[in-house]
């Protein structure tokens, strides 16, 4: 299965979600700013080009984890990607996770958005994610819940086969 963490606002959040999924950072611990900075620097692609799916690795269930920088509307993109993939006979292998929902669900939404706008210009992103415990916990919860859904989906598929 291909798991795509897609974002519009903040690349670091999507990258972090993928890294949490890949267990490069252990659950239940807040990463330090330096750690995120180091991860940012160690990965081959730091500035994700819009519309390109970047594979970052394979998780323990052999799912390929990817990051995608998209446009503003996630619904249209997911519909179009899933639709064309299904028509082409490969759509059942794709799973989408919107990491922007962590920002949008957060209570301090306006300040988060402002910081994400700054992040889009390469400013303060790592600092912001590294320092914000709430965001990190939300992100961890999101990845964990998506992983559970993913394993249920795989289980269902196995039963059907």
């Amino acid at each position: 299965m291909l798991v795509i963490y897609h974002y519009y606002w903040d690349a670091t959040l999507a990258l972090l979600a993928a890294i949490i999924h890949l267990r490069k950072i252990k659950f239940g611990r807040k990463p330090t700013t330096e750690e995120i900075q180091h991860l940012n620097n160690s990965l081959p692609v730091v500035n994700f080009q819009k519309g390109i799916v970047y594979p970052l690795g394979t998780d323990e269930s052999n799912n390929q984890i990817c990051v995608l920088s998209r446009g503003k509307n996630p619904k249209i993109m997911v519909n179009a990607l899933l639709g064309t993939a299904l028509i082409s006979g490969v759509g059942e292998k794709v799973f989408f996770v919107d990491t922007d929902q962590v920002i949008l669900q957060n209570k301090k939404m306006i300040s988060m958005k402002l910081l994400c706008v700054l992040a889009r210009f390469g400013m303060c992103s790592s600092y912001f994610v590294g320092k914000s415990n709430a965001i990190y916990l939300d992100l961890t919860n999101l990845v964990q819940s998506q992983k559970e859904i993913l394993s249920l989906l795989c289980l269902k598929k196995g039963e059907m086969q």
Partner: protein
Amino acid sequence: MRVFYYCYGSAHSSVVAAAIHLGLLPSDRIPTSAEIINLPRFDRTKNHEIGTPFYMGEDEHGNEIYILGLGPDRDIISKAIYSLLTLLGYPLNCILLIDALAPVHPVTRLGGFLSRRLGWVRVGRPLVTMGVKWRYRELLFIVNTTKGKIKSTSSPGKEKLTGLP
């Protein structure tokens, strides 16, 4: 080969381009307003359906023709579709994404906005039809170019397509 004609909302220019490709609209003259309005799915797509591909039919060579609305980020999404399919191992010579919005007249855009976004169908639809007729030759050119592209890649594409699920 699967051909996707895409525009903003899969309601107007992509429908007309797909119809020309399928022979539902003439290629030797400009169609009448009634011919355009009576096309299947013309000015019918609702806002929540944007992004969903719709099957329009099969052309004389067995190619499947679809229409697709990609909203304001159509360049990013079309790039993402190619990128995703490449990653999934789907042969890219079996799929063609064609931008049908580029030649669209501003009157069509205005009419489309009035009809689809605001729901003023009586005002918007005639404007759309008028705009389509004004830019019909450009749409015809796009379809003919697409048919040429399909011809040049059809034989290896079809061979690969048969092996797909």
